[in-house]
């Protein structure tokens, strides 16, 4: 039994919330649910080929990272149609983080944003963050530190509750 994969439902239950928090941290609440859905659909497709005993969380985060890059590129290409957004249920209120913090996160450069998200939200060591984003472990550490420093300035002062 130990040499076989658990039902995918178990994977969704165990890692769904972490991946959602990550997607929110990297993409903001508006695009997070699309990224989550694409991540888990892609994971479901590839799941039978995953080696039993693999680090499932790291595997999911790798997929989520690719989806985040796709979404970020797509977002850069499309004009921001602010007027069409409010039809969605206001997801910023759904976050465990303050909405201002999400906004502050979105203002960070992509590299800093993912470093902060993967290290501080998903609890990944810098070596793993670097493996995912490319570059050295030190660069990942610096990106996260720069990101946090900016967040302290943009969010910390006004946003303290």
């Amino acid at each position, binding site marked *: 039994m130990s040499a076989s994969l*658990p039902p*995918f*439902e178990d994977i969704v239950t165990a890692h*769904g919330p972490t991946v*959602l928090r990550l997607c929110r941290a990297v993409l903001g609440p508006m695009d997070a649910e699309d990224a989550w859905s694409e991540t888990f659909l892609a994971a*479901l497709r590839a799941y039978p080929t995953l080696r039993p005993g693999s680090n499932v969380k790291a595997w999911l985060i790798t997929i989520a990272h690719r989806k985040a890059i796709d979404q970020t590129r797509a977002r850069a290409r499309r004009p921001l149609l602010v007027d069409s957004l409010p039809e969605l249920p206001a997801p910023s209120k759904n976050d465990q983080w303050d909405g201002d913090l999400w906004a502050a996160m979105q203002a960070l450069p992509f590299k800093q944003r993912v470093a902060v998200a993967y290290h501080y939200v998903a609890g990944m060591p810098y070596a793993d963050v670097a493996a995912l984003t490319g570059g050295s472990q030190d660069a990942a550490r610096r990106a996260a530190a720069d990101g946090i420093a900016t967040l302290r300035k943009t969010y910390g002062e006004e946003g303290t509750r």
Partner: protein
Amino acid sequence: MNIHDPREPNRSDVFVTLPTIDEQRIEEETTRRLHDRLVREAQAAGLLDVAYRTIDSPVGPLLLAATAKGLVRVAYRCEGHEQVLERLARDLSPRILHAPARLDAAAKAIDEYFAGLRQRFDLPVDLSLARGFRRLVLTRLRAIGYGQTESYAAIAAAAGNPKAVRAVGTACATNPVPVVVPCHRVVRSDGSIGQYVGGIDAKRALLTMEGAA
């Protein structure tokens, strides 16, 4: 909204504690919504290999699992639903999701059976978990009518191998789709009830309900 209600003097305190409960509820709703969407998209993409749900019944909670071909598994609680799902992942596909809606028809038919409103199941059944002689036996079982019983020996003879009485017993004991494939209607030649995958009490309950015992 800002008018202070004197009947609720601690209203502002309440608001301090409320958001965590509320946030938790909203997070649960989000999780459910995302799960529903995953099921929908997985099914549309042909990636939902096994769907499952549980239902309550007079013989305890039943796990129902279906492939695209039909109902592939009905499991009693005593079989251990988690272990059953793990074996389905190993034997069929690990692409398994909790998808109650895909088992609505099966759940409804089984509910009707237990309510005494249905005497035969015309659900599509997927017997891919049973092979060879066992599968042949299960196919014959579907011909035993509501409220009737057959002996293991008679089934062995009908399946073309009169000596395979024990093998018929094994086929019944490992029936992946009990209740719907009525292995509970197979009893010993001396009239005693014999074994059952869901326990002898469940077998007796089904036969009593059908008026066969």
